[in-house]
């Protein structure tokens, strides 16, 4: 003990002191490195990061390296893995499928981002306000949510796309929003029930007594606790946008201004009958593999990200904070990833 014995706990001084640099290093370690280490410690996450980086690279660097698709890049309907020049083969009109695949990636990433961000922001906002405010606001918002939850998403999107045929543009951001038109409802419900329990937590009550404004309580005390749900839903909606956009482009009812995996599948079927003729099958198969691979990456990422928000797993991977107790067995609590499919 120090010579100046503290008389009460309030006068106690920390026994160790941190320099500014050490503090920065600690923050960096807790906020950035620990999550990365957690992610890296899981094989699923490693595969996920690998797959997702491939697509990110395709969407950024790949677009510059691979020439834009144009007719007669090669002979018509070269099979996949036959020539080095056109590794994935060519289409009926001689487009290189690799070029199409790569140049379809950036619009897809834009669509995903728009749709997932929209869903997460709207779902969190409605769920939080509804749960925290309660009363009439809650009643109205939840009635709306229930209706939005019951209306099946894909038919609604198809009808909107059909009704807007004349005025809808192929802008990927707009398509992303359209594909997420009622996806916020599920998240809003989940968030609301979380907020209902958090609302009465002691530390929230303390903030309220201290006179902290409602907006600040919601943003500082409540929303950080909802991150697992938000992340899960972000990933899920990303998947939903991929599935939905490719399906609707394949069916041919969405407008487009650039190549898309679904458009590729559509032309493979409509121009060369890829389902029934083996010579054109690769044209259909390559974009389908891209969809499956990207969605598999996202699924695995969601499974691994689940662990990011588990404080115990997190503490174990932080190096600068003193070890408390190292529990080696994983706590088998119900985590959002397991509850939300």
């Amino acid at each position: 003990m120090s010579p100046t014995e503290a008389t009460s706990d309030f006068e106690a001084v920390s026994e160790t002191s941190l320099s500014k640099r050490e503090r920065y290093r600690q923050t960096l370690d807790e906020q950035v490195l620990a999550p990365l280490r957690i992610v890296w410690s899981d094989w699923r996450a490693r595969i996920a990061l690998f797959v997702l980086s491939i697509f990110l690279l395709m969407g950024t660097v790949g677009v510059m390296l691979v020439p834009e698709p144009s007719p007669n890049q090669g002979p018509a309907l070269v099979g996949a893995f036959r020539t080095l020049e056109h590794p994935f083969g060519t289409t009926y009109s001689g487009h290189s499928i690799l070029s199409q695949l790569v140049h379809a990636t950036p619009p897809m990433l834009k669509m995903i981002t728009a749709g997932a961000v929209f869903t997460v922001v709207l779902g969190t906002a409605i769920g939080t306000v509804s749960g925290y405010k309660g009363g009439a606001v809650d009643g109205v918002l939840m009635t709306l949510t229930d209706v939005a939850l019951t209306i099946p998403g894909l038919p609604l999107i198809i009808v909107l796309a059909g009704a807007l045929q004349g005025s809808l543009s192929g802008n990927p951001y707009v398509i992303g929003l359209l594909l997420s038109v009622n996806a916020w409802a599920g998240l809003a419900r989940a968030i609301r029930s979380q907020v209902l329990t958090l609302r009465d937590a002691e530390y929230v009550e303390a903030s309220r007594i201290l006179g902290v404004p409602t907006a600040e309580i919601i943003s500082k005390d409540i929303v950080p606790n909802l991150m697992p749900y938000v992340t899960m839903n972000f990933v899920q909606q990303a998947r939903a946008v991929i599935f939905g956009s490719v399906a609707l482009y394949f069916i041919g009812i969405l407008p487009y201004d650039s190549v898309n995996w679904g458009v590729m599948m559509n032309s493979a079927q409509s121009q060369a009958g890829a389902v029934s003729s083996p010579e054109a099958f690769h044209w259909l198969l390559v974009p389908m593999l891209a969809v499956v691979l990207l969605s598999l990456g996202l699924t695995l990422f969601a499974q691994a990200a689940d662990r990011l928000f588990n404080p115990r797993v997190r503490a174990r991977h932080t190096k600068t904070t003193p070890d408390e107790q190292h529990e080696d067995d994983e706590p088998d609590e119900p985590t959002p990833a397991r509850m939300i499919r």
Partner: protein
Amino acid sequence: MNYIVKRTAQAVFTVFAVITLSFVIIRLLPGGPADYLRAQLIQRSGGSLTQEQINQRIASQTNIAVDEPLYVQYVDYMASILRGDFGTSVWYSNEPVIAVLGPAIPWTVFLMATSLFIAFVLGVTLGAFMAYREGSGFDVGSTGVSLLTNSVPYYVIALLLLTFLGYRMELFPTGGQYASETTPGLNLEFVLSALHHGALPILSLVLASFGGWALNMRGNSIRVLGEDYLRVARLRGLPERRIALRYVGRNAILPMYTGLLIAIGFMFGGSIILEEIFAYPGVGYYMIQAINARDYPVMMGAFILITVAVTIGVFIADVTYGWIDPRAEGGGTRESY
């Protein structure tokens, strides 16, 4: 009882909301169906139709009398939809929409109900076995397969099945609902033919969704297996069969029942794409045809029918949930997902 009344009110409200939404889409969307029909009529007639005649045409097709005040249009539209009058088709030589879509409804419901049932039963059974053999090779393998199939969209599976089983091996028909030489009715040939034609669409949905159910069931069962009441049940010497079915099975399935609510909507959405791929004339097939032909009355009719079907499905699931799980009577259990 109160619970059922509340859920019924909610279902009725949803139907009203959907019809309202469809009114908004037809009438108020800029560049939407009403505007398109008007432009089309003016262009086709070359100016020979008077304003009044045009309005009359639009009214007979969409049930919306555009020259009335907006609230009258709305009330009229609502009334005619509730009477089962969905307007007249533009594409199918002015037949009433219900005559086009009506015969298609049972086929879509048949596809969806069968796939949902098979996927659920298969997934739950597999998940339970995986949980009982947790950590074994069987468990790891099945988890991998479930994760993988869960990442493959149903339409990709559908296209692969159609290519290989339909065209290359010619094991299954590549379109239609039943062979044309059979007579619809309760005879063996017809039923077998219908099953043969429905097999691939059903298989696509089952393969794409059983993995999700299995993973869900596995997680729930493992959680239940760790509960104290299970240890007590074992100590009481209850037969293993009873424990597995009554104690583990029941408690693990309950939380998944709400997942059914979401699955019903998902399945009906999926039916649209699948029916198009397999050229299976259900509601979704006509919906896509209608969109491509700009036959808006049929499109909106299909949308309303599908949504009402989903609402009824969700309603049934909701009400029976309160019956299966007595705790739900208190309300508020819907929040559990």
